[in-house]
């Protein structure tokens, strides 16, 4: 059976034009997808049953047993951490937040090691952005800063920017200028009209310099700023100022570099400065599929997009303190529930060590790095393949993913609702 307009559940682009052929409970072909999508749909390799670590061996257990033990561990904890959430849909994330509030837990999502700093920056200065279709139909200048879409968001350029014709850009490739800013040459920088190579950790100064130039205070800019020549800075500022519609995209090259949120803030303030001259927008290249959805769901329930600490009953938020890496590094938490993500792979070693030290429960379809650190793993259906629900694209557009077939796994929502019911019962 061929299913059209399937929503990809890999990255934040949420391409929704895939054609997937399904045979029973198996995906046999994918059209329109990128390499990552193909791997996601075709290379699906699941954990078969819930497993529990008993001393030095793994044993298979039932879902009921696994969920009951998970509930007991979480109820017993004085500082549980509920981490992940980006790989599942909003309805499950929502139960996650309610679980956290009733447990007095900290709940955090993968933005913590992705665009968390972007959120901190937005909280300082706001976010002049737009949906991706605005860029597709209008943009004549596109900037990718600290982002490598060819590798991380393979269809971003063909669906929304460089190669994608739009209403006011009938020949996009010719009509759009692409500027790439990075510390290294990448596949993306190779196709740029202008590549600005910045010293590692030098983004903040370069952004400040551009702001000064756009403001007409370029006279103070020295001959070189963090590896970039004064001439190139002026040229880039000029391209941006003379754009009819400029679109600035930034990636983790900016959020993870020294200065973190301040880099993003500087980029946003550059966009605001440019907005005084022309139309300019800025957007984070959100990575993990529905990470933006987790920010949205956390926000409407708790008021904060990530790193929410319910220890005191009310919601408290302070990244750097209530963020997962910090909590694990300080060895604060005494139990951890991981849902739809892989901190074992993506957190520094000290965090992995603490996950191994405490009871860690993982709800995830696949054997991943965290599996080896976990006490229990509960396999579930894969969002966008055999589970459906709401996901938010990197620009905030919500799309309902499709369920391609009815498999034998329960989905995240089912497992979490059972867990929530037990916890609610116990808490009265």
């Amino acid at each position, binding site marked *: 059976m061929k299913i059209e307009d399937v929503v990809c559940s890999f990255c934040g682009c949420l391409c929704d034009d895939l054609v997937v052929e399904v045979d029973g409970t198996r995906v046999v072909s994918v059209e329109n997808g990128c390499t990552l999508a193909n791997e996601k749909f075709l290379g699906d390799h699941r954990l078969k049953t819930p497993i529990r670590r008993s001393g030095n061996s*793994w044993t298979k257990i039932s879902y009921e047993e696994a969920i009951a033990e998970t509930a007991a561990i979480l109820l017993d904890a004085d500082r549980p951490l509920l981490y992940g959430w980006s790989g599942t849909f909003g309805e499950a994330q929502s139960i996650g937040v309610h679980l956290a509030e009733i447990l007095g837990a900290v709940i955090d999502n993968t933005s913590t090691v992705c665009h968390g700093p972007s959120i901190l920056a937005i909280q300082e200065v706001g976010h002049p952005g737009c949906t991706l279709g605005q860029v597709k139909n209008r943009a004549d200048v596109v900037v990718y800063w600290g982002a490598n879409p060819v590798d991380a968001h393979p269809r971003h350029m063909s669906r929304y920017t460089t190669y994608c014709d739009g209403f006011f850009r009938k020949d996009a490739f010719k009509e759009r200028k692409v500027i790439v800013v990075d510390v290294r040459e990448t596949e993306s920088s190779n196709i740029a009209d202008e590549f600005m190579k910045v010293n590692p950790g030098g983004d903040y100064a370069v952004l400040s310099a551009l702001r000064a130039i756009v403001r007409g205070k370029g006279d103070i800019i020295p001959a070189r700023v963090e590896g970039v020549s004064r001439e190139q800075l002026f040229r880039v500022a000029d391209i941006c100022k003379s754009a009819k519609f400029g679109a600035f995209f930034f990636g983790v090259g900016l959020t993870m570099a020294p200065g973190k949120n301040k880099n993003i803030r500087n980029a946003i303030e550059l966009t605001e400065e440019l907005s005084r001259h022309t139309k300019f927008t800025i957007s984070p290249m959100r990575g993990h599929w529905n990470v933006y959805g987790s920010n949205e769901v956390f926000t409407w329930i708790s008021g904060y997009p990530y790193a929410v600490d319910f220890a005191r009953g009310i919601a408290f938020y302070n990244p750097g303190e209530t963020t997962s*890496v910090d909590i694990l590094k300080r060895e604060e938490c005494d139990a951890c529930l991981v849902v739809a993500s892989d901190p074992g792979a993506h957190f520094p070693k000290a965090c992995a060590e603490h996950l191994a030290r405490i009871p860690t429960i993982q709800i995830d379809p696949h054997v991943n790095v965290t599996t080896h650190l976990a006490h229990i793993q509960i396999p579930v259906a894969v969002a966008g393949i055999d589970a459906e629900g709401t996901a938010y694209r990197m620009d905030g557009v919500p799309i309902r993913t499709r369920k391609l077939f009815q498999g034998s796994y329960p989905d995240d929502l089912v497992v979490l609702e059972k867990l929530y019911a037990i916890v609610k019962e116990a808490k009265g």
Partner: protein
Amino acid sequence: MRFLLNTGRTIKQGSFVERKNNPSYQVAAATILMNPVDMLEIMVEEGNHVRVKSDTGEVVLQVSPDNGLTRGRVFVSLGPYANHIVSPETHGTGMPDFKVTPVSIEPTDDPVLTVSSLMERCGGLPYED
């Protein structure tokens, strides 16, 4: 020799993200990209193993050349190998320094560990299905 380590997403690492016990994931995540001249300098060839050390820890990786890298800089795709050398310090932002970690690199004959044995070293128990 001292280098500055950068980490990031790559399409290979991304492709195997749901199959992290797969040897291809290990290859994608345990490869360190270096400028070819730097490789000459420390006398390693493509496929050789190197020991990468930072203030935080050390890990053995496999070398691959990349002309796009400036000398003195190396790249490892994000994942458990890179995370053996990246510091958990977040500077009060929640975000570790994934982009700039000073490291030293030297050739070694030691093997590149599998993902599961890497986690075993962190106190975990390998799960093989």
